[in-house]
């Protein structure tokens, strides 16, 4: 560590104000680092890009920390920043937004398919983490981000609607389709691996 003091980042902050800002940021924002990373990884599909996206998100959040109302939903606030950064700067370089008509996708009921074979869904136990993450990564982006915010990060419909800037009804319908698509992918995988018999198609 050099002995010279660090340059002041914002207009004339007092050392006490700086220390307070840092403490509140660590307490309310940095605790969500794992969540931000998981979401970034699913959005970008690439660990190096996810690192950069999360770092940029934290930097933007720290600069804008005075705008965050302390004690409210920091996780949602951070995820909104992360998603905007992703859309503006990363999506162009990594994945492309889908042009498919998502409403035209007919959800398939795995539960009904399993009736003669594995109605309790015990085949899930044999599917490892990487396979599940791969199936999520194959979902269309709008479904992927909804399922990650709900099923991985545990946000409520209302919180997801705020982060994605869509109505709650849209969150519900995306979540329904995303989960059914995911079940379909994992079912196909389990049939392919011979974990379940599957019906002839």
């Amino acid at each position: 560590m050099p002995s010279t003091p660090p340059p002041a980042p914002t207009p004339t902050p007092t050392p006490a104000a700086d220390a307070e800002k840092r403490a509140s940021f660590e307490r309310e924002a940095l605790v969500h680092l794992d969540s931000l990373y998981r979401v970034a990884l699913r959005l970008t599909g690439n660990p190096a890009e996810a690192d950069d996206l999360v770092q940029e998100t934290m930097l933007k959040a720290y600069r804008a920390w005075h705008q965050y109302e302390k004690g409210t939903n920091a996780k949602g606030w951070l995820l909104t920043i992360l998603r905007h950064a992703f859309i503006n700067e990363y999506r162009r370089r990594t994945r492309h937004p889908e042009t498919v008509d998502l409403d035209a996708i007919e959800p398939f009921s795995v539960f009904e398919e399993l009736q003669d074979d594995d109605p309790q869904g015990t085949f899930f136990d044999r599917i490892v983490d990487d396979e599940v993450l791969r199936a999520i990564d194959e979902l269309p982006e709008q479904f992927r981000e909804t399922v990650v915010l709900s099923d991985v990060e545990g946000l409520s419909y209302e919180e997801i609607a705020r982060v994605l800037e869509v109505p709650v009804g849209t969150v519900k319908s995306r979540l329904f389709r995303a989960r059914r698509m995911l079940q379909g992918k994992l079912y196909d995988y389990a049939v392919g691996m011979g974990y379940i018999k599957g019906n002839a198609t």
Partner: protein
Amino acid sequence: MNCRECTEHLYEYLDRELTPQVEQEIRQHLADCPPCGEHFDFERLFLDFLRARCRAQGAPSELKLRILRELFDE
């Protein structure tokens, strides 16, 4: 509540997004209707499975150090 109405609320029920009154009506239907009960159990198992498989991963420790350095040491 009939089976179709119950199934329409499937994920809202499992995600705890319903009012206590509708939640209670569904719980009652599930208790009275084994096929719906099995379907809901399957979907709950699926959501638990998803959560368990996806939450293991966290941010790499180097990333945390990189961010701390960038925010506070420069």
